[in-house]
């Protein structure tokens, strides 16, 4: 079949069962947009900024488990999208991002809206392509989807010059992908798996260290089975929230810089880390030389480069977590004796009794943590939770009662302010039956506020809950603790009227200063099912605790001083 490059893009998206493309047109990608106009197979959602298009695709991918697709033009269209690519790269989110490029004849001439897009995206994508001939385009797009979703997932960028989208060539999308140089190891080595199970059976204080790879591999069910069969306690990374139910007695909590006391102490005391799809990020380990000093390490990961990168693995197992657990769980059920760890579970329970995750109520004033708890009480499993970046993000990870994988969508590795709102739109598109909440801050929300227009236009009723403390709260917290309270450029006292702002775009807004008002606003926003901002005035100087200061040892936490309730 001889068709144009632009038609090939459409045909490829249809063949990949893409139902949503987030994008923004412009000169170099116009041939493709002309074909989008003519088709009815997928929906194009016009975001109001290219960065938001990529974040929306990320949210869509995270909530659905499918590859997210974004489309942008050359030059500034592409450079605006780079933050999204980098974010997806850090958090291993499968994306295919298609950009227009100036015609081949103009490449290298500093043409209008020309930038070396593949040069820029090389270091923040899993792979990228500059397509120089339409006869390659079908193969490239098929490879792009395959590479994005297989192995350790990640974003793939395809840059297509304008004349290539106009060029006619043969198109055959049925040919299977042949990549001699890319064959991810998905099945774990059985001998290593057996040795790892022996180590678990022999350990006294084993600990599951659950990472985001479990969510990517759709392995949460198996992990739950593994944890329950062995009765070994578990800590979750920030990215793994929702792997275990919040009320699972074996789930200690999140670990790391803002992890719970019990989680961090358990990690410091364990004699065997059972790491599943986690990468020992610096926010998790604190000071590496002091991290889990007495522990042997089982490390299951799809990415060989993640194993023994930071923490030496005694039992390295390269493979897809799900495949590996399918072998491992039955073996563990035979040999692991749950009662063996009874005193270890008791030790951890004591840690938790000593310093539970908590906060001090102060009369009728709204504490930010209360908002998250309350969201959880009122919406629980019915909501998907996206966040921006900062204090509100950590409180969400700490206090929301997660019940399932893919419920939690947040920018972990890159820490991208402005991620939450567009991501929550993508989540809503992928999972329309559930309520899509974006927990955000008064700093972050303004970083992609233009998306109010997209959400209103496409009826993506995201409820943005702003924990408004008139500060860039997390930076303010560091300034308070480590910079002698010099609050340099973090005071956000000057603010828009968020109610009027959202109303100007056609949504509804609520300014909330009491707990009753919060309940009423949330109820109203859910019932109205429209794009909303709930601007919640919270305690200004609240800190996220516990806290392991950057570079400190995991067991050296700043802890909450619990005040007795009056």
């Amino acid at each position: 079949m001889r068709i144009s490059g632009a038609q090939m893009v459409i045909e490829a998206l249809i063949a990949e069962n893409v139902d949503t493309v987030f994008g923004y047109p412009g000169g170099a990608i116009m041939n493709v947009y002309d074909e989008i106009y003519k088709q009815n197979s997928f929906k194009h959602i016009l975001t109001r900024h290219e960065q938001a298009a990529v974040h929306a695709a990320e949210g869509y991918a995270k909530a659905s488990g499918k590859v997210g697709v974004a489309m942008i033009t050359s030059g500034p269209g592409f450079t605006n999208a780079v933050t999204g690519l980098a974010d997806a790269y850090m958090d291993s989110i499968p994306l295919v991002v298609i950009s227009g490029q100036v015609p081949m004849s103009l490449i290298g001439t500093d043409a209008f809206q020309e930038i070396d897009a593949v040069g820029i995206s090389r270091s923040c994508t899993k792979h990228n392509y500059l397509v120089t001939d339409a006869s390659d385009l079908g193969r490239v797009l098929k490879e792009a989807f395959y590479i994005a979703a297989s192995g350790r997932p990640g974003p793939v960028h395809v840059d297509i010059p304008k004349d290539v989208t106009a060029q006619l060539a043969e198109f055959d999308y049925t040919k299977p992908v042949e990549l001699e140089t890319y064959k991810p190891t998905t099945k774990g080595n059985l001998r290593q798996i057996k040795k790892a199970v022996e180590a678990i059976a022999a350990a006294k204080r084993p600990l599951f260290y659950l990472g985001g790879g479990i969510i990517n591999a759709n392995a949460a069910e198996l992990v739950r089975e593994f944890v329950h069969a062995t009765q070994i306690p578990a800590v979750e990374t920030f990215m793994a929230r929702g792997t275990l139910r919040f009320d699972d007695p074996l789930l200690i909590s999140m670990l790391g810089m803002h992890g719970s006391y019990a989680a961090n102490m358990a990690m410091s005391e364990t004699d065997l880390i059972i790491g599943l799809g986690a990468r020992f990020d610096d926010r998790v380990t604190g000071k590496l030389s002091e991290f889990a000093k007495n522990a042997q390490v089982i490390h299951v990961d799809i990415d060989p480069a993640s194993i023994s990168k930071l923490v030496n693995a005694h039992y390295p197992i390269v493979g897809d977590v799900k495949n590996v657990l399918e072998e491992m769980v039955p073996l563990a059920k035979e040999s692991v004796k749950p009662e063996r760890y009874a005193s270890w579970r008791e030790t951890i329970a004591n840690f938790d009794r000593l310093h539970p995750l908590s906060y001090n109520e102060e009369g009728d004033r709204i504490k930010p943590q209360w908002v998250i708890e309350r969201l959880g009480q009122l919406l629980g499993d019915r909501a998907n939770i996206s966040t921006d970046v900062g204090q509100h993000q950590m409180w969400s990870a700490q206090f929301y009662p997660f019940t399932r994988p893919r419920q939690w969508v947040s920018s972990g590795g890159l820490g991208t302010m402005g991620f939450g709102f567009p991501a929550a739109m993508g989540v809503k598109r992928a999972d329309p039956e559930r309520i899509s909440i974006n927990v955000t801050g008064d700093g972050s929300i303004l970083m992609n506020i233009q998306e109010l227009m997209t959400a209103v236009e496409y009826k993506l009723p995201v409820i943005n809950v702003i924990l408004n403390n008139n500060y860039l709260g997390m930076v303010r917290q560091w300034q308070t603790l480590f910079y002698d309270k010099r609050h340099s450029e973090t005071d956000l006292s000057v603010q828009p009227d968020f109610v009027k702002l959202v109303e100007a775009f056609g949504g509804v807004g609520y300014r909330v200063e009491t707990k009753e008002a919060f309940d009423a606003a949330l109820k109203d926003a859910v019932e109205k099912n429209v794009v909303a901002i709930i601007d919640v005035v919270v305690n200004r100087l609240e800190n996220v605790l516990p806290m392991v200061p950057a570079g400190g040892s995991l067991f050296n936490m700043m802890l909450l001083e619990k005040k007795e309730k009056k």
Partner: protein
Amino acid sequence: MENERRVVSVIVVNEASVLSRITDLFSARGYNIESLTVAPIPDSKYSRLTIVTSGSVRVIEQIVKQLHKLIPVLKVYDHVDFVEKEMAMVKFPISEPINDIDTLCRAYNGKIVNLGDDVLIAMVVDEPKRVDQFLKAIKRFHPKEIVRGGTVALER
């Protein structure tokens, strides 16, 4: 941890921008490149790169793994038992003693390869350490220009 000199060979698909993928990886992750050579492998769609690098055991392990992770990389050899050679060419003023230079070159698997009106060009092929020695030895002949080819290596 002690830094160790390592020779790593990488077999890559011979396609546009593949070299930048490799060098970008080294710069992005802060790895050293002491020398790098690249040429197509005859009768194949692959090229072979030879990279001389240095780092701790853990860094070298990461370099190998990260190289493997690049999509167009077919194989990575972290050489242990291998033969390595490097070529160097040196330009001397014609006024320097040609016989002395020629004798020296021969000791390092080389010879004079070009004689012009003003200059002569000599070449040697030897182990990189020996090339270092050669370049030290020829200083007294006032070399005008030196070019080193970078290391190539084959596992025994």
